[in-house]
């Protein structure tokens, strides 16, 4: 019998679990790879409970393993033997009531502290970035409350600033979850919710709707992109000046601008600076303002490349089954590819001073792939 050796080995394995969990499992959507104080506190608490569970596991499994091996009936005769019929032991009962009580206290104290340090409602002050996020089936709308503009599916934030997001839903429940930055908070109609976080480092953090909203729930994603202050200021400025979008020198882009009206896109989508003095779109659809600055298409399910954008326009349902954007070209429409090319050029020129081409990078993806 090598019960002791086994126990020692088990202990070693069990004890290394928290260590492994603490340093592995990084990624742009991992809760164990925090990039800000809120997610950090949440992860630390998890690691702490993991540590506490080690003695529980070692104790329970050790005793279990030991007793079934040590007290097993070794032969048929043993199976009929009658061991001493003990009914209980008062002192033991007390002891093993107190042990979990202690464990509970050890979990509870840091838990309560972290609840009050991360879940307390805050008022957005002048130093904070205040955003109102609305969940739609199946995309996110972000209103920059201090700057007065609206964007969709990508939340650009400055590094080191507290971001205070008030949450709402336009239809069913959704949930706002960016694991690297903070735990989720649900978006519920008639329920004024809030989440706040800080990003410590520039980078792209993946977000995901975490509350079943049927249809394209799995594809209801978004990104939070944290930038250094100067980049962020430039980004803000380009949105604030979007209304003064210059007429492009590129005829393809201008053709796209015309087509966007002809094909009815602007019945739904707002585009600031579409034509000087004209307001287009409907606030309940994703704004395409400065779409050229976007890194993704279709609520962060594909990179914003000309090819992907064209694929999206050709057949939004193929890329994201069930979503509410109609297919605007019949498959046999001879002008389809031409028109899509023009619209893609136009959309990508938005926010890029009328240039439809050129590489765009906004921060790196956090945690590496």
């Amino acid at each position, binding site marked *: 019998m090598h019960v002791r050796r086994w126990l020692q080995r088990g202990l070693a394995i069990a004890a290394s679990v928290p260590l492994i969990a603490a340093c592995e499992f990084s990624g742009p959507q991992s809760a164990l790879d925090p990039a800000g104080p809120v997610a950090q506190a949440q992860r630390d608490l998890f690691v702490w409970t993991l540590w506490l569970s080690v003695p529980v596991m070692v104790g329970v499994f050790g005793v279990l393993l030991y007793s079934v091996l040590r*007290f097993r009936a070794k032969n048929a005769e043993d199976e009929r033997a009658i061991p001493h019929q003990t009914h209980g032991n008062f002192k033991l009962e007390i002891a093993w009531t107190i042990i979990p009580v202690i464990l509970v206290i050890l979990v509870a104290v840091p838990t309560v502290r972290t609840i009050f340090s991360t879940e307390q409602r805050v008022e957005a002050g002048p130093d904070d970035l205040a955003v109102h996020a609305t969940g739609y089936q199946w995309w996110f709308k972000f209103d920059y409350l201090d700057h007065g503009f609206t964007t969709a599916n990508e939340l650009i934030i400055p590094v080191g600033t507290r971001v205070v997001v008030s949450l709402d839903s336009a239809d069913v429940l959704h949930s706002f979850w960016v694991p690297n930055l903070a735990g989720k908070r649900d978006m519920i109609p*008639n329920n004024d919710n809030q989440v706040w976080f800080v990003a410590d480092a520039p980078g792209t953090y993946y977000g995901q709707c975490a509350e079943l909203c*049927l249809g394209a729930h799995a594809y209801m994603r978004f990104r939070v992109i944290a930038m250094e202050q100067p980049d962020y200021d430039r980004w803000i400025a380009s949105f604030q000046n979007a209304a003064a979008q210059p007429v492009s020198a590129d005829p393809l882009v201008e053709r796209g601008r015309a087509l966007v009206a002809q094909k009815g896109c602007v019945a739904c989508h707002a585009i600031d600076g579409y034509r000087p003095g004209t307001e287009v779109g409907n606030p309940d659809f994703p704004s395409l303002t400065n779409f050229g600055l976007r890194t993704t298409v279709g609520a962060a399910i594909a990179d914003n490349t000309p090819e992907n954008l064209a694929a999206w326009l050709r057949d939004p349902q193929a890329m994201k089954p069930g979503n509410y954007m109609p297919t605007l070209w019949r498959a046999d429409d001879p002008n389809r590819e031409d028109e899509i090319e023009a619209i893609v050029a136009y959309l990508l020129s938005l926010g890029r001073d009328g240039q439809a081409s050129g590489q765009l990078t906004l921060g790196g993806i956090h945690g590496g792939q």
Partner: protein
Amino acid sequence: MAVSKVTVPVPAPESTPSDGLFTRPTWTTGIASWLTTVDHKRLGLLYIFTSFLFMAAASVEAFLIRLQLAVPNNTLLSPDAYNQMFTMHGVTMVFLAIMPLGIGFANYFVPLQIGARDLAFPRLNALGYWIYAAGGAFLYSSFFLGGAPDAGWFAYSPLTSLSNNPGNGTDFYMIGLLVGGIGTLVTAMNLIVTIVSMRAPGMTMMRVPVFTWMMLVTSFLIIFAFPPLTIALLQVIMDRTFGTLFYVPEAGGMPILWQHLFWIFGHPEVYIIVLPAFGVISEVIPTFSRKPLFGYPVVILSGIFIGFMGFAVWSHHMFTTGLGPVVNTAFALTSFVIGIPTGIKIFNWLGTIWGGKVVFTTSMLYAISFLFTFTLGGITGIMLAVPPFDAQAQDSYFVVAHFHYVMGGGALMAFFAGLYYWFPKMSGKLMDERIGKLGFWFLVPGLHLIFFPQHIAGLMGMPRRTQTYVAGIGLELPNLLSTAGTFVMLIGLILLLVNIVHGVLRGKPAGNDPWDARTLEWSVSSPPPHHNFDHQPVVNDRDALWVQKYPESVHGERVPESASEPYDAAGIHLPGQSWYPLFMGLALLVFSYALLFHNFWVVGISLAMVFFFTYAWALEGVGGHHFPAGRRGAGQHSKEGHA
């Protein structure tokens, strides 16, 4: 005395004349005898069999879920089909498979454990079963009538409103659970009355076997937990059928109210699932450790305490809904506290094994795996009860892993232990231990292979209820492993089924008491005669049968046979069968469809039928059989039975 046979040589009973307006049927064989049965043992078997059917359906759904998730961007199932799959999987497992499995065991064994001849209200018992069967059939017919429910097993509002979910699926969910809930409620009430008033002479509450005790607590949980769900279901049905405004945000309705009502039911529900399992474990471990349950009163008390606390933790499912730090703190603390009595139970089971003679039957193996898996699942439960961490884990695969550990690895494995333990009693045959153990070694490791990687997937940011996931962020491996696990587990399940069939057809005769067990159900023949006990058992200690067999070992005293005499004097009376439970169930089925299709004429007719059957029920008289006193059957208190 020889090992008793399937049929017990009790002299033919005299049938009692009907004293009602109608006569009750008295078939003993054939399909009609099953349709009209009010015998708790037959109903128990029906429950267990039906729940296995539903479990197979839910397993197929689980299998499809896992196949779809094997690799990212898989297109085996469309999002809509996938939503129906996990909704029906969850609903079936919880309401149609595992809860009825516990109730089935209770039906069969509670009367036997307390020395009774049936439940207090046999026809009500049958009604409970038929409503359950009708509710399950109703839910599954949704697949053919416009699509199954797809809003998840907790069907959060406003996803279930007519505007957001116009199909029939949601109506099937709401009406099916409403009607099915009535069945569960009457069965629970029946069990409470039975356990309170039909215990054998001398069986004080502190001598009641732990399984029965846990069923008592469970039944109380049911009668308090189901009403909030029923009302919530009714509200949504009203919204969808009559245009009321309970969950219409535009009119001021609050979706969050549904969440509260659902989880006020839903958390107790998880204890409704696991307390019977605790009960089974508390029978299996002492039997195969050949020792009494360690700390019996403490185990009972902690069960009661868990039941109480179960009503005080519901908001831990709602930590992310923005209830605020104070509420979250409160519910976090109550949830932690629930870990204490649960831990105490675990420690007492360990204490039972300690110093015993552990017999490694398949049943015991499952019980040991229960201790292991449930503890792990309980620990992740405590982690989830930490609101800041739950903010990350809620609605992620970490939660999926947690509840499969406690329900699949906990409750279900405990019921498999119970199945192996009680199968000989129910069938009179032994299952094959070799196939059993082989199956075990596929089933349980398979289970861990499925669900352990899901913890990691969850921590890596995988949300639940999504038919696909993003490639390249570390989710491929855990999902692939998890899918591979289903194949391993499948082998185990098949071996289990093979063993059941093999046991029924070819099993060796079991005798009264193959495990040298401790409680009264093992004192009668296998399977037990219709009237359970030839003599009214009289009890003077805990572990009544053990005392009868080995009084010296527990400083106990054998109850003399003559003790039964005063109680046998009146003879045994067993009521006749009845059609009305079945008819009532059918009427409710008609009602369900009529309501679903908004045919209010038929709704009226079905309610009139219910009304009519109620009278027929009340007036049909008692009928049945009467066994006069003074005749002795076989197999009572026979120590020889297990020799």
